């Protein structure tokens, strides 16, 4: 058990969760007090000493599922010809682990054995899925997940994959959207029928499905479908563990922490997670910066105030007064490329900069693809930057010719229209991958800006290794920038913005 725990802790560290030695010791101590057969309890209590941040919890959960997965013959990956055996074993296994409803599980096992010569037909499976979702019976949902993976997963032993593909295949075949529609339809009919019953009794209240009720139903079914999805995911994972062992799998399935997700290549789900962690991040950053300001050293002696306060002590300056240092609040000018792949990165940066705009004397933002447009107005009077960022995408006028990045043209136009307004207090941030589609670079603009502004930084969301490859000309711009920073994750972004203010 201790070996297992050590391996587990190693995996957590590899996933980026900081686990100190004393926390490891606490976890080991935990195992002495918590009954080992209670898997849920182990999960939560181990988590209490190993994970100290709620954003790390999903990564922890994944690792836990892998290292402390349920093992047994039922989870072996069955080949096509052994389909039936797989089903049988699955059925009886259900009895053994008896998770929630042993009685139900037993019946189910028999049902499967009788029903499947070749496993279940798609129709039967669809029917069963539908019933499971309608009744919200968790053991039934589990059984469906198991069957679906058997049927559609097409899992092959020994392949070094993370299981995302299997998940995708299973879900595509189940076609959950259609099931959802069917469920709602059914509910509508049911109330319709109730309505007719009520019609016989004229005093009875009229029952219809109001929009509110429909909405609630929909959410209810959505929750059940999410549960099913999770079941399928863990089912696949369990089989993979049985096939390849914990350590090998952990490596391929490891999820990055939200702050370490590569913004440019984030999946849709990851983007949602990113967006969620952005709000607390910017709040924390603002608090930290404000605190830094307040605790800064005192300024020079304020002679007037000292004399004024000395009057109360008979003209003896007992209590010297100091001027508060004027916080050097830089003026920020953000010029962001919002074409294609770098768009999400630009959005996050704009969001973050504006969320802490109280820390700057002024923030102006410009976005471009091949045309350039000022978007500061979208942030004015809006208390939620996310909303403004959304409006930028729909309303900003950034296309000049063809909607492919043209840094040269965008920069030139910027210089002509707004170049005058750059002053020695402004810091200019340029965001983009500098992939210019072989247009003219317009790097002379950067040089001019550099001459006027206090600082010029370039944030590049691409890994450093890709710089200056293909049509990337970040090196040419770098000649005129104070610094070019690789900024791929929220963590890097936060650090940069923190140092800026």
């Amino acid at each position, binding site marked *: 058990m201790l070996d297992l725990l050590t391996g587990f802790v190693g995996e957590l560290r590899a996933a980026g969760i900081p686990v100190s030695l004393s926390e490891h010791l606490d976890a080991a101590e935990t195992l002495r007090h918590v009954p080992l057969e209670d898997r849920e309890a182990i999960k939560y209590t181990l988590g209490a*000493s190993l994970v*100290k941040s709620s954003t790390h919890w999903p990564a922890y959960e994944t690792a836990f599922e892998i290292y402390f997965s349920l093992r047994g013959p039922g989870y072996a990956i069955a080949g096509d010809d052994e389909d039936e055996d797989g089903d049988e074993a699955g059925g009886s296994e259900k009895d053994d682990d008896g998770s929630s409803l042993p009685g139900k599980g037993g019946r189910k096992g028999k049902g499967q054995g009788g029903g499947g010569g070749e496993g279940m037909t798609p129709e039967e499976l669809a029917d069963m899925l539908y019933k499971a979702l309608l009744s919200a019976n968790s053991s039934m949902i589990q059984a469906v997940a198991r069957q679906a993976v058997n049927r559609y997963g097409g899992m092959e032993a020994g392949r070094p994959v993370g299981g995302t593909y299997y998940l995708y295949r299973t879900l595509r075949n189940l076609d959950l959207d259609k099931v959802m529609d069917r469920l709602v339809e059914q509910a509508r009919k049911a109330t319709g029928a109730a309505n007719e019953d009520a019609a016989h009794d004229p005093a009875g209240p009229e029952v219809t499905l109001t929009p509110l009720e429909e909405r609630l139903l929909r959410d209810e079914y959505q929750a059940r479908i999410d549960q099913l999805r999770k079941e399928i995911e863990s089912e696949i994972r369990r089989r993979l563990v049985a096939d390849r062992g914990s350590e090998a799998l952990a490596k391929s399935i490891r999820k990055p922490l939200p702050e370490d997700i590569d913004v440019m290549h984030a999946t849709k789900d990851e983007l949602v997670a990113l967006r969620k962690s952005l709000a607390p991040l910017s709040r924390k950053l603002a608090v930290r910066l404000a605190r830094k300001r307040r605790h800064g050293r005192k300024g020079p002696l304020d002679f007037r105030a000292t004399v004024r306060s000395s009057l109360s002590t008979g003209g003896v300056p007992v209590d010297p007064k100091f001027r508060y240092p004027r916080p050097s609040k830089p003026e920020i000018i953000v010029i962001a490329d919002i074409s294609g792949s770098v768009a999400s990165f630009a959005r996050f940066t704009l969001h973050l900069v504006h969320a802490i705009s109280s820390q700057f004397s002024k923030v102006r933002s410009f976005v471009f693809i091949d045309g350039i447009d000022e978007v500061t107005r979208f942030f004015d009077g809006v208390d939620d930057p996310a909303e403004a960022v959304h409006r930028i995408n729909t309303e900003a006028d950034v296309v000049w010719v063809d909607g492919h990045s043209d840094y040269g043209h965008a920069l030139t136009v910027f210089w002509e229209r707004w170049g005058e307004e750059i002053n020695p207090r402004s810091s200019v941030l340029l965001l983009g991958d500098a992939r210019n589609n072989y247009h003219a670079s317009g790097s002379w603009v950067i040089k001019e800006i550099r001459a006027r502004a206090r600082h010029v930084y370039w944030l590049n969301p691409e890994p450093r290794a890709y710089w200056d490859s293909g049509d990337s000309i970040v090196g040419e711009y770098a000649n005129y920038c104070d610094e070019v920073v690789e900024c791929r994750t929220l963590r890097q972004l936060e650090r940069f913005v923190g140092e800026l203010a």
Partner: protein
Amino acid sequence: MTSNQTEATGVSTGRTEEITSGFPEAGPPRFDSIDAVRTGLAGVDYLADDGISGVVYLADRLAKPVLVEGPAGTGKTELAKSVARLTGSRLIRLQCYEGLDESKALYEWNYKKQLLRIQADSGQSWDELEDDIFSEEFLLTRPLLEAIKSPDPVVLLIDEVDRVELETEALLLEILSEYQVSIPELGTVRAKQIPLVFLTSNNTRELSEALKRRCLYLHIDYPQLERERAIIETRVPGISQALADQVARIVRSIRSLDLKKAPSVSETLDWARTLVVLGVESIDAEQAKDTLHILLKYRSDIDRASKELAGLDTSG
């Protein structure tokens, strides 16, 4: 007098390091099993899930403080109160705020009394006098020291610990890991019993590693549908099951929207109480819209939610 003052305020730097004998005796465990925690808490109207009861049980067994984090209004403070009620211990509460210092959190010398003592009797030699005025008689205990000194079982609640400055956090470290307080003039005060300690945080800033390392971590999120329904039923007297179910489901739907501030459990309870008082049996869209301001505290959120609930947008 001034010299006393500087000595007393210099406490945290001049920590005496004769602390090797370590831990105070751990009392008998308060709870038998995780299930005992859960049923016990349910007995005092606090419905704990697996995570909560597991961590509370562990906190008792390992004698470690619990750091509770989560959105506002999910029952973090309530957990500490309920555990105190369950174990029949005294609840000592330290509300944190910016500017909290050790004279408010740990202890303070009673200068006025010391001064009186010095003036009242000048026959003594200075050494005797010094021993005398730095005795427990002249010590004003503050919540942390009080929790340590109490002979009876105590639950110590350090509320909203994220509000104090990073530097002030260090005050807590000694008490959290060793259950003792070092007072330079007196020596080390060790706990007579190990208090159950809960720290709550709204996560407005990152707490220091040192603090986190000493605690068990518990994140309380919005409850699942079933649990929320059960919470409503236990906490709102006179609510019908159907209404509780409906309330829980509507709240879940609202939380799934992208809002500035999702409705918390306490706001849900307020809403349920309001509906009971209004004599509502079953909520329709109109009533929901009229009472939404209890659930949501931002104009834009209310607009958004009422629009969604009225079904103008069923795509989501």
